């Protein structure tokens, strides 16, 4: 039976609950879990003041309630599974190294910031800075996979170095800004200034996009590796028109203000 945490009191200010993490809970029993310290604003309180704890940790934690004001859930986790039944607040899965987080609702900003491994699935939308580096960091996401079935806001994959981010809907502006390497796939539309300052890495979009003037068009071709991604995305619950599988993509290289080794691939298949 998994550990079930149910929010009974809505925090008035953000609740920093980085203790909701398999690594920190694995050796604790029910009462000890309730006694774990969280920050309610700048005040230290017990987790039990906000959450009812039921069940025992068997590798899985289920969290229920309106969690928009609960931050840092699953931060730095290395194993196990967290299922969030609704929306979740800032920094979820930040610096995560392994395991899995499933968010049935929406995720706020800084989802999986500086993630290093593991997998995060968001059934709804995600906020700004998904899979990004924190301000001042030279490296963002360094591994793992983020699947967002809805939309994301700005600066997804900022200074990303490795890993995979998939957006089922639209992404905001500056997708893959300053990207170092890795892969971002957007099935919907992208905002402006995609890949600004990117060195390496791939941004793949299944729609047309506005390309920065510091990118140069290379060719239209069939990148067969995309089929592997499409298969993988379908296994992860994304629905993709089969015509994309054998379709052509327009390749743009950039950003020429940096190494110019990055690529933006835009599907040429039009069934919109």
């Amino acid at each position, binding site marked *: 039976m998994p550990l079930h945490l149910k929010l009974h009191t809505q925090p008035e200010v953000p609740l920093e609950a980085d203790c909701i993490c398999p690594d920190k809970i694995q050796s604790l029993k029910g009462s000890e879990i309730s006694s774990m310290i969280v920050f309610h604003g700048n005040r230290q309180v017990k987790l039990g003041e906000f959450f009812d704890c039921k069940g025992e940790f068997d590798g899985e934690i289920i969290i229920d309630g309106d969690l928009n004001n609960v931050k840092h859930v699953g931060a730095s986790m290395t194993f196990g599974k967290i299922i969030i039944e609704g929306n979740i607040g800032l920094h979820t899965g930040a610096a995560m190294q392994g395991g899995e987080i499933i968010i049935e609702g929406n995720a706020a900003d800084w989802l999986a910031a500086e993630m290093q491994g593991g997998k995060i699935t968001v059934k709804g939308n995600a906020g700004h800075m998904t899979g990004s580096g924190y301000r001042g960091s030279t490296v963002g996401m360094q591994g793992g996979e983020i699947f967002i079935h809805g939309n994301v806001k700005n600066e997804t994959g900022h200074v990303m170095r490795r890993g*995979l981010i998939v957006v089922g809907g639209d992404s905001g502006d500056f997708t893959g800004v300053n990207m170092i390497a890795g*892969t971002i796939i957007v099935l919907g539309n992208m905002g402006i200034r995609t890949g600004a300052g990117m060195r*390496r890495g*791939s941004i793949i979009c299944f729609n047309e996009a506005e390309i920065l003037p510091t990118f140069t068009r290379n*060719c239209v*071709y*069939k*990148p*067969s*590796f995309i*089929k*592997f*991604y499409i298969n*993988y995305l379908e296994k992860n619950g994304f629905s993709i028109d089969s015509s994309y*599988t*054998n379709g052509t993509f327009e390749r743009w290289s950039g950003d020429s203000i940096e190494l110019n*080794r990055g*690529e933006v691939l835009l599907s040429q298949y039009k069934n919109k």
Partner: protein
Amino acid sequence: MKIKSTEIDDTFAEAFKMFGSRIIITAETKEWAIAAAQSVTGFATSVIGCKCEAGIETEILPENSPDQRHGVSVLFFAMDSESLGKRLVERIGQSVMTCPSTSCFNGIDDGNEVGVGGQLRYFGDGHQISKKILNKRLWRIPVMDGEFLVDDIFRVKEAVGGGNILIMAKDQNTALKAAKSAVKAMREVQNIILPFPNGVVRSGSKVGSKYKALIASTNDAYCPTLSSVVEKTEIGEGVNCVLEIVIDGLGLEDVEQAMRVGAEAAIKPGVKKISAGNYGGGLGQYKIHLHKLLAKGEK
């Protein structure tokens, strides 16, 4: 033992432990996939002179291929794992990467890892890109028609080489027809290849030679033209042509199965005897007895 008018020799094929690997070649059309497969398996009949043995195992339909394109699976065999790894790098680099529209993937799950894409990537001169999907790294090497996509790691595993049957017939036409039938039947078996031209070899060899520089020479005991010249001949009454089919497989059972269906298919009027080649049993790790094999088939 006699089946119809064909005698089954009471002997065994002496097979050896080898290392094998399977690669999957895909391309935009079936023709290009086959072209690459034919090229990559060229000059790979025997480890004696070619450093490896290779052949086309089967064609793969798009729905079953790694990238949903037409595919061909190819098996490679060599005497050790390291050597096989080198052959894969050489041959995939020269024959698959060069062939328009192709991609190349590892086709077995177990065994030792050998870096293939990881070596070939340097052809990209710094423009190569790697992608890791489902814990598998792929290399995208820019080429003039787009990109050559190749697995970073291929696998090689212990396998069996040198399974064989000898078809001893009244004349060349009969032997060729019998061999053709045998090859057709054997090619239905999975996990095996027949590395010689059209699956058949006429220049069977024995170990050693009167010339010191040669490690192998013609199997004079099976040469009809020498039947009255050599000390020991295997050419019986009415035999004027002998053809051999050599089988390499990923497993002993696969080789046995191929030998069995091949021998059965080769039994025809005019085929005097089905035999098998061995070196007295002292060299190979596996002895595949014809009588036992064909008795299994009868059951």
